[in-house]
């Protein structure tokens, strides 16, 4: 015989769910402010890559002519923003895993609070943190000679797409953080979000890749997202590309959310 758990959800909850999530978000913000090292790392790594690619590899890479006669950096920034989101979500996987291993999530589970508020807090906190990081990375890129669009609508679209990608990867990161038994267990996720951009149009055009890699690059989610970001940033036409990018992000977000929710509903170890 198996006893069903959690069949009843009191109806009073709507407002409570939101307020619990806000409380958890505040907790998350405090963690971020108290642990600036992790935030600096998430920004420092993309900036380092930016410098490396602009200063070291950039000269040797041929990505074709840029609009308005810009240099390789104009091509590169979209890919670096992708890396920024990836690093941001790795931090989140670690943070969720720390909650799990420290036992504080078990305390939350024994309280009459919204079940997923703690996860929502992580996801929203992660998204905000990543957007701030992306803003700083763009600032550094401009100092290095990046010439982006001046159209505020396009900038809004860039922010929106980055937020959506950050949101999607954050849910996946939460699931990985819940799944991993130790902090080391999150490293496959870190590897994936940091290697996939290299196998996309983030740094070089897939046209220059070997056939198998090119096929993969053309079909993985990071390529349409990078292309859409690049188009928006450089004032080139993007219409269909943005739709595909948004669809990929939405799909990843839903998958990540469902996975995380299923993992969170399991009996804890």
């Amino acid at each position: 015989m198996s006893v069903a758990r959690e069949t009843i959800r009191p109806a009073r909850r709507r407002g409570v769910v939101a307020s619990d999530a806000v409380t958890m978000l505040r907790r998350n913000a405090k963690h971020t402010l108290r642990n600036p090292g992790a935030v600096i790392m998430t920004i420092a790594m993309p900036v380092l890559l930016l410098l490396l690619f602009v200063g070291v590899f950039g000269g040797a890479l041929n990505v074709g002519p840029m609009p308005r006669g810009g240099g390789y950096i104009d091509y590169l920034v979209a890919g670096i923003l992708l890396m920024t989101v990836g690093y941001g979500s790795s931090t989140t996987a670690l943070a969720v895993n720390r909650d799990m291993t420290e036992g504080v999530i078990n305390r939350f589970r024994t309280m009459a609070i919204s079940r997923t508020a703690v996860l929502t807090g992580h996801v929203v906190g992660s998204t905000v943190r990543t957007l701030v990081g992306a803003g700083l990375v763009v600032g550094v890129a401009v100092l290095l000679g990046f010439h982006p669009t001046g159209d505020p609508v396009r900038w809004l679209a860039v922010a929106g797409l980055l937020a959506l990608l950050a949101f999607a990867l954050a849910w996946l990161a939460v699931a990985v953080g819940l799944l991993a038994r130790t902090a080391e267990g999150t490293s496959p996720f870190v590897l994936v979000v940091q290697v996939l951009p290299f196998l996309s149009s983030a740094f070089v055009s897939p046209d220059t890749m070997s056939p198998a890699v090119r096929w993969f690059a053309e079909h993985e989610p990071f390529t349409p997202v990078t292309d859409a970001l690049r188009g928006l940033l450089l004032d080139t036409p993007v219409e269909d590309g943005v739709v595909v990018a948004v669809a990929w992000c939405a799909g990843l977000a839903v998958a990540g959310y469902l996975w995380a929710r299923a993992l969170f509903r399991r009996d804890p170890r």
Partner: protein
Amino acid sequence: MTTSAIALRGLRKSFGGKVVLDGIDLDVREGTTFSLLGPNGAGKTTVVRILSTLIGFDGGQAHVGGHDVAREPDAVRAAIGVTGQFSAVDNLLTGAENLILMADLHHLPRAEGRGRVADLLDRFDLTEAAGRPASTYSGGMRRRLDLAMTLVGDPRVIFLDEPTTGLDPRGRRLMWEIIRGLVAGGVTIFLTTQYLAEADELADRIALLDNGKLVAEGTADELRRGIPGGHMRLRFADTARLDAAARVLGGATRDDEALTLQVPGDGGVPALRTLLDRLERNGIEVDELSVHTPDLDDVFFALTGSPTKEAAR
């Protein structure tokens, strides 16, 4: 169900085919302290995890605070507080922030929440450390912060899973005082421990869990009474006196090598007086007298089948 804070009927749980709880029945009256005692791996923590809605169970019924654990987990959660063996504090937050987090999650009005936090910091001797991150706390301080966090929501039933494991004697005393204070406030305590002295010290009723089954339940005195082994031990200067005493006191066990006699009895003052009177009337001098009352250790070892101290002697 009105007077039972916790009621279990035939509670069963297995992990991957291994039976961990094999039909547990128990009742804990409101406002009392109940201690679940058992060796490591007996299933104590599993009971706490089920009753605090952390994990499900496979059979039987469980009610906490009058609510069905399986069907109304949220109502159970609203009634309980849990402090586990491994502290569940947020290391990156300060002591005060940890408590405020709890106050916010319990939706206490701001002023009331802050007031309760200040009270708890004071009561648990944490005011001075309130502004430091919990990661800098000592083991005892973390345990106190953990319990203080549990109390923010004013729970009616508190689960304490080995609350003093790993604490130094001073920390243990402090924790005991705090627990007694809670009981005085009408709270029901469900305490698991592997320290018999702790159960003896704190609990109104004690149950012994061994291999997923309750092997005994009652007050500490009831448990002691059910166990043989109480005796008075007399030592004599020489064999002649030992012989004389053995003749006077029938039914005693003699040990010629140690020159001692073991006289069964509860070791109370009247029994001692009678015994010594009889020896004196017969002019037998006693070198040394000691009284052995069975303690919970005897009960524990006798019932859980581990080698007893008697057998080891």
